[in-house]
């Protein structure tokens, strides 16, 4: 350590980073976001125990659902492609609730989140960086699901662009849903509360057209499914497999996802503001 400053006169701070009010702006935000996302994706690579169940669950449900519905469908509606019908369900199962919210809670309870707050990091990047890592994971989880569909004979009438759109729509849904666990994580800092947020998955995933087409639903389930955004998301995803570039279906899926995102991300941003506030 060089005695380049004397006691009584603290070492001069000579940082290259722009000072507040001297620019930085979008470039700085992106830098912070990539830094936070980079750390989160490193964590993911080291937490296979977290990733593997997220991969097994959709494959398991796809197998069970196709196995149990195929016979009924063959009798009731000859020619109905159950595998193509179930692939969007599998991908919803794969991407819903896959988030770094638990890691965020660990950061909060372990104090590392506070250490980050002691840096000039953009506060929004602390949340969006994690969501960026979620996006990477969700896309990665989608690929084996698509492969599983391909192996079992599901083809997309929209071809490769349709497959990419399929993955993108599913990933956007995953991010939209993740606003809820992040909101709970930031608000409570409690791992049990974040774990409990998974209960939201059930009405979204089951009170919808997961097992039968909309016209076959009846009674209260038909009424509820009408208000479930996943109904429209599934319709959009299925259209990419069976119908083609059906704008109303795809638009409906994007609108439904956007509405969920508006609610969940608003909650997450309010919770973030509360968490980073020094009041």
């Amino acid at each position, binding site marked *: *350590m*060089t*005695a*380049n*400053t*004397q*006691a*009584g*006169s*603290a*070492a*001069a*701070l*000579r*940082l*290259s*980073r*722009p*000072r*507040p009010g*001297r620019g*930085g702006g979008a470039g*700085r935000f992106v*830098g*912070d976001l990539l*830094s936070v996302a*980079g*750390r989160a994706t*490193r*964590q993911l690579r*080291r*937490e296979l125990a977290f990733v593997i169940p997220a991969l097994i669950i959709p494959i398991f449900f796809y197998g069970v659902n196709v196995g149990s519905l195929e016979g009924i469908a063959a009798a009731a509606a000859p020619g109905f492609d159950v595998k193509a019908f179930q692939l969007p369900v599998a991908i919803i199962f794969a991407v819903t609730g896959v988030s770094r919210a638990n890691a965020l809670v660990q*950061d909060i309870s*372990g*104090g*590392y989140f*506070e*250490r*980050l*707050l*002691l*840096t*000039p*990091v953009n506060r929004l990047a602390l949340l969006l960086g994690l969501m960026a890592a979620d996006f990477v994971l969700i896309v990665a989880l989608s690929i084996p699901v698509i492969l599983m569909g391909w192996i079992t004979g599901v083809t997309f009438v929209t071809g490769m662009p349709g497959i990419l759109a399929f993955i993108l729509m599913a990933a956007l849904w995953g991010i939209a849903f993740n606003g809820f666990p992040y909101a709970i994580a930031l608000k409570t800092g409690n791992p049990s509360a974040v774990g409990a947020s998974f209960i939201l998955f059930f009405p979204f995933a089951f009170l919808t057209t997961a097992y039968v087409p909309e016209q076959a639903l009846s009674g209260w389930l038909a009424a509820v499914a009408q208000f479930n955004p996943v109904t429209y998301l599934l319709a959009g995803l299925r259209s990419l497999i069976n119908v083609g570039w059906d704008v109303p279906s795809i638009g409906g899926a994007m609108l439904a996802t956007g509405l969920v995102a508006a609610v969940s991300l608003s909650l997450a941003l309010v919770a973030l503001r509360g968490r980073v506030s*020094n*009041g």
Partner: protein
Amino acid sequence: MTTETELAPIESTASSSSPRPTHEPAIRATGVRRLFGETVALDGVDVEVQPGEIYGFLGPNGAGKTTLVRVLTTLLKASGGNALVAGVDVAKDTETVRYRIGVALQEASLDPGQTGRELLELQARLFGIPKALSKTRVAELIDLVDLGDAIDRRVGTYSGGMRRRLDLALALVHDPEILFLDEPTTGLDPVSRRQIWDEVRRLNREQGLTVFLTTQYLEEADELANRVGIIANGRIVAEGTPDELKRSIGRDVVVVQVEGDVAAARAALEALDDVEHVRTAGDELTAVVSDGPAAVPVIAVALNEVEHVRVLQLSFRRPSLDDVFLEVTGARIAGAGAAPPSEPLHTPAPAYPSARAGGASR
């Protein structure tokens, strides 16, 4: 941490650094108050720390030490008063303050799933240090805190001392002017504690780093601090150099542990000419005297005369910061979770056996 690594200040690649105020205190807190609901955590704290100084902030758990650190480091807003850190108002320009301070909070706050190097590199990126410079800086810090090959292991495998040293390195990544250490050695073994002390001293001596250190360990404040502020119940109750504070209560202290009528024992001590004054903490009487060796036999004889009093132990020593704390607050800090010192704070005089140890009390 015995390495002689030299830690160079970060050089600029742009002339964007704000001008540093000169001839100003590194920290100036004026009438800082902080309420949590009805609870008053800080009740008008005034503190001034000069550049290059190590300021020890001493107090028991719950006294308000951490609350003040959190206010000064922008993590918490004060309910009243104001605070300037490096000449910058912590309430108005939090970001500038964050560039100028390094902070190691009470628990080493680290991500156990990352390696030490990854955390240092991330910290450097978040402070906007260019990649090439950050590599050099991280290498210097790794040597400085003597983590060796462990730097590429995950933090979850580190010992408490290693975590603390990494925490210190993280606080130094951006070459801060002022270092806040909130109970930096709590829970560490004596060897690790001494390593941290050596490093803090070295940073202060060689880099002129201003250090604001909170501690509940008397020994730590005595060893490290140029000046000490004692906080109790959210207020600063004494301030000065450790020697000044100790001198302020007299030359020697005779400590007597008694069984029986403590009030009568106290009255007997207060009646003695040699005794300046007496404080009581439980069954322990602390008498401030001008000449300890001469006072001990006088006190022993006096207590021997008191009915229903049995002396269990009697010793004299130079005043400690704990005695200062007792003097100004009426309670001892040492009982409030202080760890046993790694070595005696002062060379203790031999304990005098009880004048009537083992004898029947009257």
